């Protein structure tokens, strides 16, 4: 009797997992179809208006001597009107030459005002909260220290705020060091699937594009009114996204606002990065889930997409548990044809070998970008499969522990690889 109940529970788990993965597969298939043959929603880039908003660009930095110079140079040389642009790099407890680099740029350009933090807790949310209190810009645009913003990007991002419903904007992230090694090439493919297809399709379909915390902007006063960033959440971008949606603001995606980043060049650094993303994202899940469901400003379809977006980093954990469940079924002699074929369908339909994007989504993105050689790397994402299965599961698991024991995770900086 006990065995029958156990087997029933294990099989029920597999069925629930199937239903969840099938839902995600359908979602991502709709995204791919939308981007390939659907109607595309135009961004605001064609609006001509001399009355551009005053913008504060914030660049959080901690030991960024390898990259600080490049990002400062690029931001200072954007074509946004200088009298409407303020640049505040946050020097956050650095122990290298970051401060002296920023001081040089402060002397060279009138509108660069470094903000030095050498006391209190370190971390992007804390620094951002402090800067937002005295920044002059109505709009805050954020770049990570390793980013290389092109000339027109600040206008491209800021222009959308002429729409009074827009609370935040997200641009497209493209790795600059694609050719470094296999990892950076695979990350490039993942980014293509994530931005070119996922974000743009969600924008097209009036779903919930996500503000990603860099190459993006938001209204300063709105962020302050929402209580600023919670220092105990390590993905402040995801938190802001869902706070905005719950209060009726729109988040828009600017596919043409392309900005180059430095992708991690070692699997070790990538593992820390993706664990942090998963942990922070899942932290937000516990904080925002009921708020999304109860929000009076969101349509049912937006709520469904929001919940799917919030839950996405739990999928590898669900699959990892599914592997153990399948193992148990195998040794109990209950591994039948259904379960066996089912594993193929699960892997084929969703897991994608990557994080949060099936292979056909990445393929469609590559096609839109016209990158024919990159497409041939798709089977190499096999290497990412167990990698993400483990490290995203680890992040999700840590978030569960954080929530239960009310732990505050420590902020971790991503290592840079740029040559001096």
């Amino acid at each position, binding site marked *: 009797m006990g065995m029958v109940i156990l087997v029933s529970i294990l099989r029920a788990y597999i069925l629930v997992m199937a239903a969840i993965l099938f839902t995600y597969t359908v979602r991502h*298939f709709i995204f*791919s*179809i939308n*981007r*390939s*043959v659907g109607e*595309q929603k*135009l*961004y605001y*880039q064609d609006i001509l208006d001399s009355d551009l908003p005053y913008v504060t660009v914030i660049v959080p930095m901690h030991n960024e001597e390898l990259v600080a110079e490049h990002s400062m140079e690029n931001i200072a040389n954007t074509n946004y009107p200088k009298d409407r642009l303020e640049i505040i790099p946050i020097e956050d407890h650095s122990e290298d030459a970051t401060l002296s680099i920023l001081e040089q740029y402060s002397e060279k350009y009138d509108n660069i005002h470094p903000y030095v933090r050498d006391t209190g807790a370190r971390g992007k949310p804390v620094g951002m909260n402090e800067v937002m209190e005295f920044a002059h810009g109505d709009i805050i645009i954020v770049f990570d220290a390793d980013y290389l913003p092109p000339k027109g990007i600040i206008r491209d991002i800021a222009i959308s705020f002429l729409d009074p419903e827009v609370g935040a904007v997200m641009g497209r992230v493209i790795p600059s060091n694609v050719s470094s090694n296999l990892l950076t090439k695979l990350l490039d493919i993942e980014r293509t699937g994530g931005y070119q297809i996922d974000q743009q399709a969600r924008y097209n379909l009036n779903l919930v594009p996500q503000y990603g915390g860099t190459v993006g902007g938001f209204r300063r006063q709105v962020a302050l009114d929402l209580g600023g960033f919670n220092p105990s959440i390590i993905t402040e971008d995801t938190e802001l996204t869902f706070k905005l949606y719950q209060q009726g603001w729109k988040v828009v995606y600017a*596919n*043409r606002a392309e900005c180059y980043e430095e992708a991690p060049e070692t*699997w*070790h650094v990538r*593992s820390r990065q993706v664990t942090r993303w998963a942990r922070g994202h899942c932290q937000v899940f516990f904080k925002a889930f009921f708020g999304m469901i109860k929000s009076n400003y969101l349509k049912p379809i937006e709520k469904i997409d929001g919940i799917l977006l919030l839950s996405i980093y739990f999928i590898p954990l669900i699959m990892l548990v599914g*592997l153990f469940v*399948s*193992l148990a079924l*195998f*040794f*109990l*002699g209950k*591994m*039948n*044809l259904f379960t*066996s*074929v089912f*594993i*193929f*369908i699960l*892997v*084929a*339909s969703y897991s994608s*070998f990557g994080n949060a994007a099936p*292979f*056909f989504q990445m*393929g*469609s993105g*590559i*096609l*839109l970008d*016209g*990158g*024919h*050689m990159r*497409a*041939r*790397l*798709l*089977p190499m*994402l*096999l*290497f*990412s*499969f*167990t*990698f993400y*299965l*483990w490290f995203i599961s680890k992040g999700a698991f840590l978030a569960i522990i954080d929530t239960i024991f009310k732990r505050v995770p420590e902020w971790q900086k991503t290592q840079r690889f740029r040559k001096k």
Partner: protein
Amino acid sequence: MIGAILLDIILLIIYPSITYAISYVGKLIFSNAYTQYNIINRPFILGDVFLLDIFGKYPSQVFSIYSALVSLLVLMVVPLFRFFTKPIVLWVVIISFINFISSMFFIFFANHFPYSMLDYIDLYMKTLVSIWLLIPWVLLTAFLPLPAKFWNKLIFILLADLYGIIFGCIRYIVYIFIFREFSYIFMAPVFFMLEPFFDFVFVVAFYSVFVSNLALKLKKDDSKWGWLY
């Protein structure tokens, strides 16, 4: 959709012959002057699948202990090697972990192992035929958003299925060899890490070549990129 249905109809007609052919090849390889194996049939979908009625080897207690120890050693040592990248380490760790569980099972519950060679071959063959039938639908779905000609898509689906059939047949022989020569202890790692997962790898590989060729072709046509933003 027509293409996928057509391919499935053809497969439904020919799969009994294919399964008979590979079982016959297996019989030729594994039979000798002293042991002769029969080919038996089991009903499946519209016809029969043919299976080689062959036996494998149960691991000895000593072999199971050695297998468990080696798996444990690999589990502990491989993550320490810096020159293996993390994805490789994780693959090795998962395979070793499954092998460790399997070894422990044979150490403590060898008499309760629920599968015979015939059970496994039966499951393998039926899974294989199901995957042959599914490949056209998986690839059709993946190809659907791509602006390519019907015949080009059909040829790639056909090639992928053909590859699946050949690759599946080779694996059939290899698996029988492993379970006959090295025992059932490796049934679990083979099933979980090599079977359906490997089928998916070549499906993605065919898809990637198709997208790559298509991107190259479309590069010359500016009108295709009009709706980028």
